[in-house]
């Protein structure tokens, strides 16, 4: 219940935060909302010597539209994402995903950046980020860069961010015309984390054929992934429930499935297929298809 002692640092700017992150790259941790890190510190599963709290850094809490994309500051809470009018209109997958996270209190304090940087394999945001081809902006003393989400998640609790890099923003393409997206989740009854979470975005062409499909899957493996075989199997096809079901059978192709006390690998794989079909069907329906 009680964390080990640490030194606490409160940067006021991104630059200052980056300097601290560089200085304490070895034994420091960056704190955003704290809802991934503090629980681990209380269980003494994480015991950083230095804690760099981004909570007072100016300008990391925003949701805005720029160049046809939606950009969200890393310290934006799940709650803010859940209720943002801009997102409901332009990128409804994000509010839908936010709403699936934890509970009200967690959503009030937990942040999108904190969650993505933590890379929990059962977190919800990674699925949405993958389904939307998100880009993640990091800042360090050597400058900033945008990392495509396809390169972001490396393994269990591991991202491609370098030591000393801080995640500051995430960029998502807005919902194109004739498109719909959806998040379908089977939550663990105790933790609320995703046993399986599938985010999908589908764009139909003018004839109602699937022009583009993106499917992000979380909870199933050591990291969230894009179900490319599902995407390939449904692209160019009519979004009939039969076609969606058939395509969804590829949801775990080539994936090393997690098994645990709650759901064996086999069952998880089955759930992934079912929830992929459900997310796709809902996305198609929202795209105006049948």
């Amino acid at each position, binding site marked *: 219940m009680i964390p080990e002692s640490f030194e606490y640092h409160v940067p006021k700017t991104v630059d200052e935060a980056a300097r601290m992150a560089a200085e304490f790259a070895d034994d420091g941790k960056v704190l955003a909302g704290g809802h991934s890190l503090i629980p681990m510190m209380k269980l003494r599963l994480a015991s950083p010597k230095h804690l760099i709290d981004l909570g007072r850094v100016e300008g990391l809490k925003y949701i805005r539209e720029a160049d046809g994309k939606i950009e969200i500051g890393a310290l934006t809470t799940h709650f803010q994402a859940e209720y943002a009018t801009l997102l409901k209109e332009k990128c409804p997958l994000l509010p839908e995903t936010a709403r699936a996270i934890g509970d009200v*209190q967690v959503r009030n304090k937990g942040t999108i950046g904190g969650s993505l940087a933590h890379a929990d394999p059962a977190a919800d945001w990674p699925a949405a980020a993958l389904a939307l081809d998100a880009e993640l902006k990091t800042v360090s003393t050597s400058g900033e860069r945008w990392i495509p989400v396809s390169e972001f998640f490396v393994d269990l609790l591991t991202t491609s961010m370098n030591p000393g890099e801080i995640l500051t923003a995430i960029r998502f393409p807005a919902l194109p015309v004739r498109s719909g997206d959806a998040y379908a989740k089977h939550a663990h009854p105790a933790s609320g984390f995703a046993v399986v979470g599938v985010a999908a975005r589908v764009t139909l062409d003018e004839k109602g054929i699937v022009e583009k499909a993106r499917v992000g899957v979380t909870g199933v493996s050591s990291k969230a992934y894009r179900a490319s075989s599902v995407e390939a199997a449904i692209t160019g096809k009519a979004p009939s429930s039969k076609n969606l079901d058939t395509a969804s059978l590829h949801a775990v192709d080539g994936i090393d499935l997690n098994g645990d006390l709650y759901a064996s690998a086999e069952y998880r794989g089955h759930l992934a297929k079912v929830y992929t079909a459900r997310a796709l069907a809902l996305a198609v329906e929202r795209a105006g298809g049948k």
Partner: protein
Amino acid sequence: MKIGIKINGKWHENDVEPRLLLVHYLRDVASLTGTHIGCESSLCGACTVLLNGDAVKSCTVLAVQADGAEVTTIEGLARDGNLHPLQQGFWEEHGLQCGFCTPGMIMSACQLLARNPHPSRGEIREGIEGNLCRCTGYQHIVKAVEWAAEHSGK
């Protein structure tokens, strides 16, 4: 580290260890023991308080993170000797038994009614999904929140 937190309208200033959890600050430093601790995993919600108006689990917030913030705890709800409608609702509808989860439950319900003054029963259940109660089976809590919604602002 020196911090200042406005709790229930009253300013508190203390020198604390950075690792001190907000819930321990409230209970052990500010001596406001109405906020309880029920788990170690941010799941039970017994420690829920309002931090700058938002319901948070104070066992998952460092006191230093709350430096400069306003915190409302269960002790800060009644005004001038009058119970808050939620407190009254919990009393009227038997929304509690052992009472241990109750302060956190009421603070979550506070958040709910602030965002949605007339929630459906389903919305109430969703609003308190971050709070565990082992005694009531939740039904009377739902009724208590309904009572408060009906009697708020009157």
